[in-house]
């Protein structure tokens, strides 16, 4: 969909967006947060493309989702393994985490509140900055957070409604915990083109 050079530029911008998200997260968690985006991919869901790895971790996941709109529109999601969610929440509340066994999640209502806040911060940064990059206004709201079980085969179905997905594979590191997640920005054709046009414009200037 896009070439290496375009991908590189996109990744560079995303690192900046995510860097800001990390900074805000670190204020919430009162500790250093290392947030990196080692990989960026654009996937066309209509074609059964082979990806470098699974769309996202299957099994129990925490998924935060919000629609964003206007000239640049789509859906943004933050997905990470439910097992790790507890670590993230505890770190943000300044609590020590215990090792969590596979079957136990023990996410209570306040945990979901914290997850909502974390997703809010991260997605705000990403979408907000995308809209700045594109010089458009984008409206969006606070994300909805869910705990779901998605089997390996269901992954694609979960994202089925959206055609182009900008997959930002992220890795958060706070305290001892390393949490791998993915930010997915699902875009329609128009919005994707706007983005690619902008990237080309910037590349043209070099």
């Amino acid at each position, binding site marked *: 969909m896009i070439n*290496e*050079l375009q991908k*590189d*530029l996109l*990744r*560079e*911008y995303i*690192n*900046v967006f*995510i*860097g*800001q998200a*990390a*900074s805000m997260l*670190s204020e919430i968690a009162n500790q*250093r*947060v*290392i947030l*990196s985006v080692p990989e960026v991919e654009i996937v066309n869901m209509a074609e059964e493309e082979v990806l470098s790895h699974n769309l996202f971790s299957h099994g129990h996941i925490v998924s935060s989702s919000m629609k964003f709109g206007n000239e640049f529109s789509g859906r943004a999601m933050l997905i990470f393994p439910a097992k790790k969610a507890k670590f993230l929440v505890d770190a943000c509340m300044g609590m020590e985490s215990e090792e969590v066994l596979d079957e136990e999640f023990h996410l209570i209502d306040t945990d979901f509140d914290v997850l909502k806040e974390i997703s809010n911060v991260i997605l705000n940064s990403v979408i907000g900055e995308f809209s700045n990059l594109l010089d458009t206004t984008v409206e969006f709201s606070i994300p909805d957070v869910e705990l779901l079980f998605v089997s390996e085969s269901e992954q694609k179905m979960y994202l089925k409604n959206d055609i182009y997905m900008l997959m930002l594979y992220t890795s958060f590191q706070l305290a001892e915990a390393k949490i791998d997640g993915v930010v997915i920005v699902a875009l329609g054709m128009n919005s994707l083109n706007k983005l690619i046009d902008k990237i080309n414009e910037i*590349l043209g200037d*070099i």
Partner: protein
Amino acid sequence: MKIIIADDSSFVRTIVNKLISTEFPNAQIKLCTNGKEAYEAYIEMEPDWLITDLLMPEMSGQQLLSALNVNGKKGKYIVVSADVQKGTKEEVESYGIVKFINKPLNPDKLQELINLIRGE
């Protein structure tokens, strides 16, 4: 004048390289894609300036600066990074850098970079 530019993004390397070559046509510039390459280049080249990112594979910017410190290399370091956290800044400043520039690199920041190298 010898300058090393270290960043895993080819986009950033290209921009900074282009800028410096234009402003300092006689400069000898080495481009590195990670901290380890930059470290080895530093030992070999003994550059006047090192412009480096922090989040890089193989060896991070922090590790690079720390290693240079440990080896008694004194040089002029400029850090260019998307990591805007206070803790990061403090850690990196302890290695004796000239300036910490936050990404994204816009025209103002690029100008600042040039000014620093010029010595203004």
